[in-house]
């Protein structure tokens, strides 16, 4: 049984769904960040797999871009998280609903 590109795609889809479910269902901001990381990395996986299958370098380039953006996003996100935690001693996102219209 050979490992084809379809396996990678299915694996990535499963990872992505787990991440999405985490973002939707968990209330802890830190866990939500980790779920987002999971989604981003599942997408990275599809980029790499597709790039390798089609013989294109762009897949790897896109993956590198995603990593850079993810790093930046986490930096900002964690900073916000720390600031919020200092004020409220809680990381529950459902309590942060001041912007309700």
């Amino acid at each position: 049984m050979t490992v084809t590109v379809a396996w990678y795609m299915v694996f990535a889809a499963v990872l992505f769904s787990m991440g999405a479910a985490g973002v939707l269902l968990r209330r802890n901001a830190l866990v939500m960040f980790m779920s987002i990381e999971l989604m981003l990395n599942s997408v990275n996986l599809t980029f790499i797999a597709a790039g390798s299958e089609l013989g294109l370098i762009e897949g790897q380039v896109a993956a590198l871009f995603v990593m850079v953006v993810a790093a930046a996003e986490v930096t900002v996100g964690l900073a916000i998280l720390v600031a919020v935690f200092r004020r409220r001693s809680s990381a529950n996102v459902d309590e942060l609903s001041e912007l309700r219209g």
Partner: protein
Amino acid sequence: MIDFLWLLIALPLLGAAILILFGKRIGEPASGWLASALVLVPFVIAVVLTASFINGTEEPQTIFLFSWIPMVGANASLLWDPLSSVMTLIVTGVGSLIHIYSVGYMHGDERYPRFFGYMNLFIASMLTLVLADNFGLMFVGWELVGLSSYLLISFWFTKPSAAAAGKKAFIVNRIGDWGFLVGLMLIFAAFGTLDFGVVFGEAEGVLSVGMATAITLLLFVGATGKSAQIPLYIWLPDAMEGPTPVSALIHAATMVTAGVYMIARSAALFELAPVTLAIVATVGALTALLAATIAIGQRDIKRVLAYSTISQLGYMIMAVGLTAFTAGIFHLMTHAFFKALLFLGAGSVIHALANEQDMWKMGGLRKFMRITFVTMVIGWLAIGGLFPLSGFWSKDEILGSAFAKGGFFFILWFIGIVTALLTAFYMTRLIILTFFGEARWDEGVHPHESPPTMTVPLIILAALSAVAGLFNTPVRLGLEHFLEPSFEAVEQVHPPDGVTLWLLALASLVVVIIGIGIAYARYGRGELPTEEGGYWAAALDGYGVDAFYGAVIVAPGRAIATWLAKWFDPKVIDGAVNGLGYATRSFGSTMRVLQTGWVRSYAAAVVAGALGIVLWMLWQGGVF
């Protein structure tokens, strides 16, 4: 030398800028002298440039300044030909004399430098009008003279009547400007350009008679506004609220002749529309007659001269309507001299009597104001048309042209003769009431001769009024030859030759002497007649034309404006704006429920959206 032509406009414009911005620091009388110099220098330049026409070394030419509106091919370029040179000489020559006169007349006015700034602005605007080489630039000048006229009429704006007079002049002129502007649009539609050279050169091939009539009638509407003809003449008598030098410069000598100049300049267009020409000539003659009958009944010395100006402008308009363009320009020139003289003389009298303008409170001034008296007498005889003063030659050329054209125009000749009689009558009345008889002025008024800054311009203008007629006489057609290059493409009407001409001249001389005689019999022998009631009240009121326009045009206009302000604006305009605001707010309050503030609900919306897109793509790809 011709390269310096732009200085004619630039110098007075510079003066206006300096005096309006820094006038207070320059002060009195330096600002007056500066302004006078900045008109005098252009006059000298114009004289030098005109001399080269006379000795034949220079041809009419266009001087390109800069590209103005490239999209429609309009350039700021000036036209220097005999016609524009005559106008330039009148504007700068009479203009500089009146500037010098104002140095004395405006003495002590708290806005003295500002006055001269406006005067310089007027000179620059008027020169733009007469030097323009296309209708576009001419229109710019046309509007700017309207602006300076407004500023100067309401110069003493703390007086409500002066402020109202300025507004009236501006608004009535706007009606004429509307016609002028629409005429220009038609010209542009027909020719694709506003350049004089192209328009006049190709007019005969391009324009149908109907189109030519439409264009020229609209241009003539503009002329009736600026040159105070029926039905738009009503602003000019009120314009006398301005300082007297303004009346002399703008409302007698120069600006009001813009319409005459414009028609003469557009001679090639008007020639294609005989109907328009007949209307122009008729309106001119009727205006001349109507204004003369009103002038008889006026008591205010400046209003007599104002109606007299309207009447004389009627002569000029009649002349250009007869296609006697040279005669029209000739009368424009002589009128500029003697009417400026009469106004300045009247100003000198008003000055001497501490701002008294009612002729019934003058009288006997000849002993107190020798120079003013003598110069005014020359002006009186010149406008009356007594041989050999200037008015005689120019007026008779117009009347002779009407006579020579014959047919219907014979009636116009007759109207002109009657007007000449009335002119002699009311001018004699003015002179007798002002300078002869007993002193009727109020107690405590001590008349005195004006300072030299005022009398010297009077003397120069009197000399010009006396001899200017000799520029163009039946025996020596100086002006006619000089203007020939400007009118070579059009056919002009000329007075008849030989005995007829002399008989006509004799007839008008007799008429003038009769007019003077009647006036002398009525006012010159002791007891003055009481001029009250009946005709006199009607004439004093200008036949109630103001009230008529007030009822027919102003009142409905006001009613519409009130309705717009009280109903249309709050209900429709404000309603639309408020309705838009209300709609936005209610849409916002409907949509705000989507903004829950819960991050996870937003995330759910994003996921739902992404899922929706994926499903759509699968459907498009034919998966189901």
